[in-house]
Structures are given as C-alpha cells and as structure tokens.
C-alpha cells in the first residue's frame, strides 16, 4: 500500500516462477507470461455478486468517492513508480509490465461484480474489422484505416437498475370518421417493472453501443470482484454516484415507458402520451463488463468500434461517404421516379 492505495500485485505473480500473470479469456485462468503455466482463479463460494442493493438516496454508501487526484504507487516487483490516473482501476507497471489492480476504496465497492472476458483479442479484432468492412456507404479507405488500429480490452463500469412503476397515463389518438379525422383521449393506469436495465457508467460505451453489443445480460454470469480477472486489462471505477446513474438512465427509461404505455393502451394513430409515475423498489448493481474497444480517427473525428467481451457482438461509430450516399440516393430516386413516371404515363388517375 502506498499513499492510501491498496493494490493487488504480489498475489498475481506465478507461484511456480514468480513471473507476471495475466488473465486469459479463452481459458478463464491466470497465465504466467514467463513459464506459461495456468492458474485457476479462486473466488469466495459464499459471495453472491448478483445480489442487488436497495437504493436509499439518504444513505451515504450510495455515493461514490471522488477521485480528484492521481494515486502514485511503488511497484513491489521492480520498485518503479506507477500512477493510477483518474478513474483507473487497473494498470500495468511500465518497467516490468506487472499487472496492478486497485482494490476497494470504501465499503461501497464490496458489492462490485464482474463478468470476465470470454472473447480474446484476436477474435475481437476480426469482429471489429468485419463490422467496419460490412458498412454500407462507408468511405472506401475506412477498412484500411481501421486495420491499422488495435483493439484494447477494458472492463467498463455499468449499472443495472430495477424499479417498479405505478403509471397513470393519458393517450391522445386519431380516429377516422368518414372524411373527418377526430382526436380522442383515453386514460388508464398500469403497473410495470424494469428488471436489470443496463446503464453505462463510463463515456467509453454510449447507450447506443450498449444496445448494439449487449443483447442479453445474465446476472448468473457475474463473479465476485477479484483482481485476477482484471490482470492485463484496463478497468475503470464508476464515474457516477448511484443518483447520477439513475439520472443518466432517465431518458432511456422514459422512452421505454412511453413505448409500454402505447402498447398497454391498445390504440393506434397515437399522437401524444402523457403520464405520471410513482417509482418504488429501486435496486441497483455496480458491475464491470468486458469490452474490446478499437479507437480510430477518420478525417480528424475520433470514433470507436466496440466488441462485447462475452459473445463478440460488435457495434460502433462509423463515417459515411457523401459520394456513395449520393450514388445510392440516385439509384433509389431512379427506381421511385421510374415507378412514378409509368404511373403518370398510364393515366391510372
């Protein structure tokens, strides 16, 4: 421990040769980089990482500590100085390449769960390249630009939120009566639940990318926070308090709620939805999920392609080629105009 930083390092060394170990996704073990021996990772069998915490806004444990300063640490293997910057949770020593994992700061991190990487970097690189190569109307040199970049594995902080919503709503919808269009309203109430709504707690993963790479989340795959899973990967603390996480997730929740109200009302041609909801039973998890991120810059604009470290699903940001868009638009306009031309020439009406 140095300057208040508690680090897992010596317990990540190989028991056979004292070499540096890193987590290997394909085997789920710690692998020594010197003698290649594999070591299984021990986890507390009594720990329940899928347990959810009740959210109480008044309790201090729901607030995260603020990391306002960098945290220096002296490597116990080589003596070099390593600095944990900002929200960084995992580093490697620049001198001996040893994995350094920052342990819990406060009690608030005891519930932290993690799903370890399953997909390795080679597959992630292929998936990212395949995703980029499969984009329609992408610039011709995009594949070559991305091919020069390399994926980096990072454990990204996420929240899962549960809540129960008692909703009273009013829906305005249109009906056709002869040649007249009338607007009607219907009011009703419903009770609906959100279960394990995933919310990213880091700018590395946007909500759109989350919906592209995380189609299914199984809390049963969560493991207790164990530094060995992070060895060799970057990782971050949560950037937000629970309250901030809930606020960031609010727009997603409101959108989903409006969609559920539309379905519940059973009406079509809906023009407006208004509602009030009483939210109770908020529960949360503070977890880390594995992603491979490929950062690239196209015409000065930074973009990223993200591959899920669990199943390899890939999504990201991409540029469009204006020339190709124009070509596609011209083709489609020709088809539509041709249809219209024939329609008009035939004198149907």
């Amino acid at each position, binding site marked *: 421990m140095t300057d208040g930083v508690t680090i897992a390092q010596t317990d990540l060394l190989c028991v056979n040769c004292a070499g540096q170990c890193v987590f290997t996704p394909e085997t789920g073990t710690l692998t020594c980089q010197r003698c290649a021996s594999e070591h299984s990772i021990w986890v507390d069998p009594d720990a329940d990482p899928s347990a959810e915490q009740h959210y109480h806004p008044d309790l201090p444990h729901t607030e995260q500590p603020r990391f306002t300063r960098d945290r220096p640490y002296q490597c116990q293997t080589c003596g070099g100085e390593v600095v944990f910057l900002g929200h960084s949770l995992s580093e490697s020593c620049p001198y001996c390449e040893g994995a350094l994992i920052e342990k819990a700061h406060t009690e608030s991190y005891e519930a932290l769960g993690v799903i370890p990487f399953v997909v390795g970097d080679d597959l992630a690189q292929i998936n990212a390249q395949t995703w980029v190569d499969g984009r329609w109307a992408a610039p011709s040199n995009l594949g070559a630009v991305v091919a020069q970049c390399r994926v980096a594995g990072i454990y990204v902080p996420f929240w899962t939120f549960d809540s129960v919503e008692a909703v009273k709503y009013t829906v305005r919808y*249109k009906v056709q009566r002869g040649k007249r269009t009338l607007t009607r309203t219907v009011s009703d109430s419903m009770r609906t639940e959100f279960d394990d709504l995933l919310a990213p707690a880091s700018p590395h993963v946007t909500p759109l990318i989350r919906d592209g790479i995380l189609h299914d989340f199984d809390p049963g795959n969560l493991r207790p926070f164990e530094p060995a899973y992070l060895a060799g990967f970057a990782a971050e603390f949560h950037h937000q308090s629970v309250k901030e996480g809930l606020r960031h997730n609010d727009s997603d929740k409101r959108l989903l709620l409006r969609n559920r109200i539309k379905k519940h009302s059973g009406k079509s041609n809906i023009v407006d939805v208004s509602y009030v909801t009483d939210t109770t039973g908020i529960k949360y998890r503070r977890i880390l999920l594995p992603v491979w991120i490929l950062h690239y810059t196209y015409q000065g604009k930074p973009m990223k392609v993200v591959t899920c470290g669990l199943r390899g699903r890939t999504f990201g940001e991409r540029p469009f080629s204006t020339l190709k868009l124009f070509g596609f638009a011209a083709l489609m306009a020709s088809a539509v105009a041709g249809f219209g031309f024939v329609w008009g020439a035939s004198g149907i009406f």
Partner: protein
Amino acid sequence: MFFAVGPVLAALFLIVTAAGFGLYPIKKLIQVQEAKHELKHGSAGFLRTMSGWIVIAIWCAATWFAATIIGDWWATGDLSGAVGRSWRRLELILRILAALSDD
C-alpha cells in the same frame, strides 16, 4: 410525343435533385437497416434510431409524385393538364403520409 425533350430533361433533373435531397433519407435508411439487424429490438437505442424514418417515406413520396406529373406530361404532351390531374394523387399521398406519421 415519344421523343419529347422537355419531360426527359425534367426526369433527369428530378433524379439529380432527388438524389441531392436524398442524402439524409438514405443515411437514415442505412441506419434503420443497421438498427434492425444489430441493435437489441425494443431497446432505447433501437427505438431512437427507428424514430424519424418518416423522412424516407416523405422523400420517396415527393419523388414519386413529381415523376407522375412528368410521366403524364410525357404521355399527353400537356404539362398544365398533367399538373391539374395530379391533385388527386397529391391528396392520396398526403393521406398515406399522415397515416404513416401517426404510427
């Protein structure tokens, strides 16, 4: 009539103009296609990406409507008559777009 230059030039002008205005609708179409195949259905990101697809329908409808007038003009050689006959089609297409936008 069949070799009328006016309607042919008008059709070419329409395609080029529609292609120019079609940059955003085509981009939206690609994003919608990607969302349908790659985003989790029913998720917030999916719903956000799918919303606004009406711009594609408006662009197609406007192109189709203008082309029907040119087609009518080409067949009859009467531009003012073709414009006059297009009002029924315009009414139909506005009704369709109104129904689509409600959904």
